[in-house]
C-alpha cells in the first residue's frame, strides 16, 4: 500500500502523516509537492494539516487551485480514498469535495487541546477498523474549525450518515460543553456521499503512539491498511504495541 502525502507551501503536519504511514504502520509513503501533476501511483491520499498558502483569503481557498488538486479530484471521483486532516479538511471544503465551510471558532481562540471524538460511521475506508461509537481522544489545533452549512445540507448529511466524527464528552454525549469550536451538530468530521472522501478537524496522525500521549488515532491508519492493503497486512511490532495499548485503555 502506498500513501501520498500532499505538501502545500505552509503544510506543517505533512511529516507527522508521513511518519505514521511509513514508520508506524509500515506502508510505502511519498511526499507529493502541490505543483506535481501525478500522485505517484498512490492508493491513499492525505491532505495534511497546516496553513496552506498562509491561509490567505480563507483557509484552503488558494490551495484548492494548486495543480495537484486536479489529480486529487480525479482520484476521488474514481473512488480512491482521500482524507483531509484539519487544514486538509478545509481544503476539501473549498474544493467542493465535501459540503459546507469553516467559520472562525466561536471562542475566537486558536483551540489547541485533546478532545473526545465519537466515530459514528465505520463504513468509510478510514474508520472500518473502528468500533461503532468508539470514543477517540485526539488533539485539535485550529482557529477555524467551526463547521457551517445551510440547515438543509446539515439535515442531508445526518440523513445520509455522512457525519463520521462528532465531538462528545468522554462518555459519548454530544453536548455543547464537548463542542470546542461551535460546529453545527458538534460535527468534527464528514464523508462525501460515496464515502471515500473523509475530512476531519482533529489530528489522528498526532495520536498514533503512546509516547505522544494517545494512540487512539491509529485506528484510522489501521483502517486504511485493512481497506487498501488487504486484511492480511500484518502491523509492524511498533504499531501492534500501540494498538494493543489502545485496546487496553
Amino acid at each position, binding site marked *: 500500500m502506498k500513501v501520498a502525502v500532499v505538501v502545500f507551501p505552509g503544510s506543517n503536519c505533512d511529516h507527522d502523516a508521513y511518519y505514521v504511514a511509513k514508520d508506524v504502520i509500515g506502508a510505502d509513503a511519498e511526499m507529493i509537492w502541490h505543483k506535481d501533476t501525478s500522485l505517484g501511483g498512490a492508493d491513499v491520499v492525505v491532505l495534511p494539516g497546516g496553513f496552506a498558502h498562509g491561509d490567505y483569503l480563507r483557509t484552503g481557498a488558494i490551495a484548492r487551485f494548486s495543480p495537484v488538486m486536479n489529480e486529487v479530484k480525479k482520484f476521488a471521483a474514481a473512488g480512491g480514498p482521500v482524507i483531509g486532516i484539519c487544514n486538509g479538511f478545509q481544503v476539501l471544503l*473549498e474544493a467542493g469535495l465535501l459540503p459546507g465551510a469553516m*467559520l472562525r471558532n466561536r471562542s475566537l481562540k486558536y483551540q489547541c487541546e485533546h478532545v473526545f471524538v465519537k466515530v459514528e460511521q465505520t463504513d468509510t475506508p478510514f474508520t472500518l477498523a473502528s468500533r461503532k461509537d468508539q470514543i477517540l481522544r485526539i488533539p485539535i489545533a485550529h482557529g477555524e474549525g467551526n463547521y*457551517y452549512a*445551510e440547515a438543509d445540507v446539515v439535515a442531508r448529511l445526518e440523513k445520509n450518515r455522512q457525519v463520521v466524527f462528532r465531538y462528545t464528552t468522554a462518555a459519548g454525549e454530544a453536548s455543547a460543553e464537548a463542542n470546542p469550536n461551535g460546529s453545527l451538530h458538534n460535527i468534527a468530521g464528514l464523508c462525501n456521499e460515496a464515502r471515500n472522501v473523509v475530512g476531519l478537524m482533529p489530528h489522528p496522525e498526532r495520536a498514533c503512539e503512546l509516547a505522544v500521549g494517545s494512540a487512539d488515532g491509529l485506528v484510522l491508519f489501521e483502517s486504511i491498511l485493512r481497506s487498501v492493503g488487504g486484511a492480511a497486512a500484518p502491523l509492524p511490532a511498533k504499531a501492534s504495541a500501540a494498538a494493543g495499548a489502545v485496546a487496553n485503555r
Partner: protein
Amino acid sequence: MRARVFVTLKPSVFDPQGTTVTEALHSLGYDAVKDVRQGKYFELEVDAGTVAEVKRIVAEAADKLLANPVIETYRIEVAEEVVA
C-alpha cells in the same frame, strides 16, 4: 477601472468576530451600536473597455475566489455605480 468588492457573511451565518466587536463597543459605552458584521474589502484594478465588462469580470472573480458562496455574499461597486 477600479472595482470595489465587499464580502460579508450571509445574514443567516453567525459572525463570532462581529459579535465580539459589538461587545467591545458596548464596554466602551457605545450602547447605540446594536450589531456589527465584519467582512472583507477588495480593490481591483481592471483593464476592460466598459463598466459592464468590468462588472462581469469582477463578479466572476468573486464567485470563483473572493467569496465562498456557502457562507458569504458580496457587493460590487464600479466607479459611482452600485451593483447588487
